[in-house]
């Protein structure tokens, strides 16, 4: 292979580098993403700008192509793995630099269900979008959700299920919130392969989110409404 076929990231200008990072995220190249992040930091970029402009921008393309059937789960996981590499560098710096926090989310897969790929993608994309995320993992019963809501005081509760047999448990959680008079304290978002909008409405969730990108947009939308209400109040 000739030298002309090689890309030296450090020789690219900022715009070219960001575009190349989109490419590298798309191809799931973790080391290259880490290198790109470090180069931009070295050039004085703010961690928050790298996160939103390079990483989230790139993952948005990945998300869109997943939605459109151009990419499939393995490629999305590879891209997510590359993004995680970049996030690991940026996370401590984001805390130091006081990057804006959009909101807080508690998320978990429901009782009886151990599937967490979609949930993990949502967690990562939410973090990328500036949310603080508390991930409860898999197989969560109602007490675990309630305990986390009480201790973490999030804005949003996210629930995920992959199985037809486990998705009704989301209603158990929501009904319990209603019984305790705390349903309106949280935005409840639900997702998972067998779910749809109709199911989300039927169980009393605020929204069904088809994929991670939609989850982020929906969460931001609800946070904006909440701020508007507070400003109006």
């Amino acid at each position: 292979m000739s030298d002309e076929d090689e890309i030296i990231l450090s020789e690219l200008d900022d715009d070219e580098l960001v575009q190349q990072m989109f490419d590298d995220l798309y191809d799931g190249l973790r080391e290259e993403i880490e290198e790109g992040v470090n180069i931009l930091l070295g050039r004085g970029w703010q961690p928050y700008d790298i996160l939103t402009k390079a990483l989230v921008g790139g993952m948005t393309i990945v998300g869109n192509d997943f939605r459109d059937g151009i990419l499939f789960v393995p490629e999305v996981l590879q891209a997510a793995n590359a993004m995680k590499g970049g996030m690991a560098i940026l996370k401590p710096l984001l805390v130091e630099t006081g990057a804006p926090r959009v909101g807080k989310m508690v998320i978990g897969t429901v009782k009886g269900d151990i599937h967490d790929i979609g949930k993990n993608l949502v967690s990562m994309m939410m973090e990328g979008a500036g949310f603080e995320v508390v991930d409860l993992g898999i197989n969560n019963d109602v007490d675990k959700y309630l305990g986390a809501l009480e201790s973490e005081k999030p804005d949003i509760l996210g629930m995920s299920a992959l199985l037809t047999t486990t998705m009704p448990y989301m209603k158990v959680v929501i009904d319990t919130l209603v019984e305790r008079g705390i349903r309106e304290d949280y935005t409840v978002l639900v997702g998972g392969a067998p779910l749809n909008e109709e199911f989300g409405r039927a169980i009393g969730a605020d929204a069904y989110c088809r994929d991670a990108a939609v989850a982020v947009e929906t969460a931001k939308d609800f946070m904006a409404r909440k701020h508007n209400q507070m400003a109006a109040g």
Partner: protein
Amino acid sequence: MPRPSDHGGQARPTDRQGGAATRRRGRAARLSERPAAPAATLSDSALLARGYDSGGPAPLLILACGALGREIAALIRANGWTHARLHCLPAILHNHPDRIVPAAAAALDAIPHERAILAYADCGTGGALARLCAERGIDMLPGAHCYAFYEGVEAFGAGDMRAFYVTDFLVRQFDAFVARPLGLDRHPHLADDYFAGYERLIYQAQTDDPVLTAQARRIAARFGWAFERRLTGYGALATLG
């Protein structure tokens, strides 16, 4: 770090759009991508990707998942169900549950029958297959998963959530049905993302086949799972005809 350029350094969106020459493919190219017609032979590869049709006419249409094709065909032969026509949709539809209902509805419309039975469980359709059956007045297999009725839906219950269930078909087709679609052939490390919550493999054997049992054992070992074999036979399938 120097590395080969896959995209000539151009941004991905620009690459994807490309010039007119790369975007124009024409109808012939699209048509060539259409799934082939159902096969007339019961090979595993056909059942996975194309489906199967035993031919007709026959008053009873058994519309089945390709993953059950060989088992149902064996029952048709063993029990002499000459009144039944078996039509299998491609088993790979399982990886896209939203495509199962339109495919089943199209097959019910296209194939003449007096009575039909849907040999699917819910299979991730979120109740949509049950609604289709209610609309058409046809029966379907009980339960959430098509491996539940081998053991009997009641005995199976909710299943063991930390168990990965395989049947004869899935053992034979594990690479084509599971490993390759999940990218494990190209990215073996993704097994951690997919399977971290699983602890054991339960092989529901329809037939007593030492070769398949050894294969199932190897799948369990590949992912570090404990192995259990249950000789279930055909379960509720045996009453289809």
